[in-house]
């Protein structure tokens, strides 16, 4: 194997190599790491980031970015809890309302970006800042809790008493994202727009529609993740839910190998990236490493992952 082939492998599987390393290191240093419950916990904690980063992968594949997903989570969470708990509306209606509100946020981003040609980071900055405020004023910034309520068991439900419900949704969302990217026209358009928007327009692709759709999808996933998180925690805290989640999602996408300038969407890479991010956090927590150090170590691992898959300049 020569140097170039080695480079090719590290470019393609850099994220995976880091993930395997993280698992091996954890297996050695972290007590009880290889226990099945530890695994479930890691996945449950990674749930939001995995689900939202699937949307983020597609957004970034178009050459865009959405930094408002944290605020969208706050909005969905508070609307869901408010309707379900305070107004005692049905579960279905509350969930739909939360998802619908999220989609409105997504449409706002998408229209600014797709129709009015705003820069994605600026467009989504608007809702990143104001969205959480909007969410907070729904309940005057007060947390809605519902411990011991009839809904409080849903979020911790385990299928057959074993598999946490989050795992099922992670599987569904990742498979759906992979399907969209690999098998659908929409997925192809997304990547084409990110790779060459001008050419995409000239060949008659409805770039505006695709862009609006992709931001709506991303916000929808944020709303969905927020709803399930709300159920798991039995509380809706618009001040804290999804705080900084956009950064973890973007990091997951970057580690996973999707180019920040758009183009090919690497869905499995994002999944690996999200798991890497979570494993780092878990390792720090379970080994009682001081939080400030944890952040530094996190960034070092991100740098390693990005370095491994750096395209050779040509």
């Amino acid at each position, binding site marked *: 194997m020569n140097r*170039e082939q080695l480079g*090719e492998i590290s470019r393609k599987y850099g994220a995976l190599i880091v993930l395997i390393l993280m698992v091996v290191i954890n297996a050695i240093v972290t007590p009880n790491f290889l226990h099945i419950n530890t695994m479930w916990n890691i996945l449950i904690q990674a749930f939001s980031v995995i689900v939202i980063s699937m949307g983020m992968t597609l957004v970034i594949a178009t050459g865009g970015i959405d930094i408002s997903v944290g605020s969208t989570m706050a909005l969905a969470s508070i609307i869901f809890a408010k309707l379900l708990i305070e107004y005692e509306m049905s579960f279905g209606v509350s969930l739909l309302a939360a998802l619908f509100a999220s989609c409105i946020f997504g449409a706002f981003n998408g229209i600014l970006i797709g129709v009015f040609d705003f820069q994605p980071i600026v467009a989504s900055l608007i809702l990143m800042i104001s969205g959480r405020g909007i969410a907070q004023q729904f309940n005057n910034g007060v947390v809605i809790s519902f411990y011991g309520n009839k809904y409080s068991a849903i979020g911790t439900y385990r299928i057959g008493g074993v598999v946490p419900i989050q795992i099922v949704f992670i599987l569904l969302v990742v498979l759906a994202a992979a399907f969209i990217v690999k*098998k*659908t*026209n*929409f997925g*192809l*358009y997304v*990547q*084409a727009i990110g*790779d*060459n928007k*001008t*050419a*995409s*327009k*000239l*060949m*008659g*692709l*409805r770039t505006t529609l695709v862009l609006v759709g992709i931001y709506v999808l991303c916000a929808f996933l944020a709303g969905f993740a927020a709803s399930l998180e709300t159920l798991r925690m039995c509380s809706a805290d618009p001040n804290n839910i999804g705080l900084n989640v956009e950064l973890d999602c973007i990091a997951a996408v970057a580690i996973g190998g999707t180019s920040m300038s758009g*183009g*090919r969407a690497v869905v499995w890479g994002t999944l690996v990236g999200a798991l890497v991010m979570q494993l780092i956090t878990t390792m720090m927590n379970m080994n009682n490493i001081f939080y400030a150090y944890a952040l530094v170590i996190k960034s070092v691992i991100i740098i390693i992952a990005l370095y491994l898959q750096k395209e050779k300049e*040509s």
Partner: protein
Amino acid sequence: MGNEYILEMKGISKSFSSVKVLHEVDFRIKKGEVHALMGENGAGKSTLIKILTGIYSRDGGTILFDGKEIHPADALEAQKAGISTIYQEISLIGQLSVAENIYIGREIKKHGAIDWKAINEKSRELLAGLGLDIDVTKVLSSYGTAIQQMVAIARSILIDAKLVIMDEATSSLDDDEVKILFNIIRKLKAQGISVLFISHRLPEIFEIADSLTVLKDGSLVGEYRTADLTRKELVSKMIGHDAENIVEVKRTYRKVSGEEYLKVSDIQSGIKLKGLNLTIHRGEIVGLAGLLGAGRTELARVIFGIDRKDKGEIWIDGKPVEFKLPAHAIGHGLAFCSEDRKVEGIIPNLTIAENISIANMKEVSRFGVIHHAKQRAVAKEYIEKIRIKTTGTDQKIKNLSGGNQQKVILARWLSMKPDFIILDEPTRGIDVGAKKEIEDLIREISAEGISVLLISSEFEELIRNCDRVEVLRDGKNAGCLRGEEITENNIMSLIATGKVETGGGQSE
């Protein structure tokens, strides 16, 4: 004796992910000669140059430069060895002065401070030696490309370059500027500096090069003295088959009997289009001739719904149409192959199969789900039909040569079964072999009933292919030529004066 050559590359091989792009190529340049490196796109010219200048590493072979073996690991090392490269795009710093650009990195100092007076003085002398008298204290970007190139050459003289590589250096120069550049090349030669010259323009090669090396498909074809070759012989060595057809084919005039397909009347838009008319019949190939800025591309963009018109009307099959988006035009059976393949054509990281089918996904999908086998089958059909040279349907389009990329784009449009296709400079920057194939294809599709609007700056291309040529001049129609009237002379006079010299031919 053994030192007759400044550069001797022997047995150079290079592969990119198992595709061999150079097969043990030998290449050498004598001291003080101008040597041209010739070959179609994809022949391996640029790979060879990049190995020489340290941008790529080589898999095998040796490089002797000035008698010593070198292993340049990057451009700087190659430069230190005495190899200087002048690119088509200037790689100097536009915001610095001419003198600063020449002396950056080797400033003359006096009492520890930069001696600007000396630098300016010496820069002036250096440029004067090249026959260039300009104000060296002005910023570089205030001068045109030609002068910027000469500044780059002056810099390479200063850094004691023994070999100056000019990679398509003339492609953005006009005739007068090329003349000045050639004078400078002759001066370099007189100083014993060798020049490696790369250009697509054959007349330039025959004017300036002492000898040349031809590459084809990554292998050496041969090394020749320029004086021993005719132009036709050179072309046939480059494309590897008889070049007769390329140079000589003259289109026989067809009287197109098809009914009127497209009619454009009095199109005005901005300052570029000042009332243009155009008619195209079914199956007709109509050429658009004119200088840059005459309104050719601009007219095409208005017809296709990319740009807005201020005034005027467009009819298709006798019905007025109004396209606000390319998608609308495409829905009416129009296709538009842009002159800027990189920016407006290819989706670089998608595969050939995806690039071909992407604008027409309904053919290869059901309920929005892609049928990959069908997608590949469509691609295969076109790869065979128009001879796209590729390792397979799943190769990324960005890894193809320019000519093959263009064929993929054409396949994309043709797969949509258009009634009318606009081709804007379809063979620009494409090697001779692919160019001929694309021209053949254009005539083929017109025989199938597709109308073609062919925009080209190359008169021979228009003469070879068009039933009619509409000449534009300054945003207006200058005149129309048919069949036998389409000659270089007539097109030129229409562009220059708006009249045909020997009567007739004026129409509309």
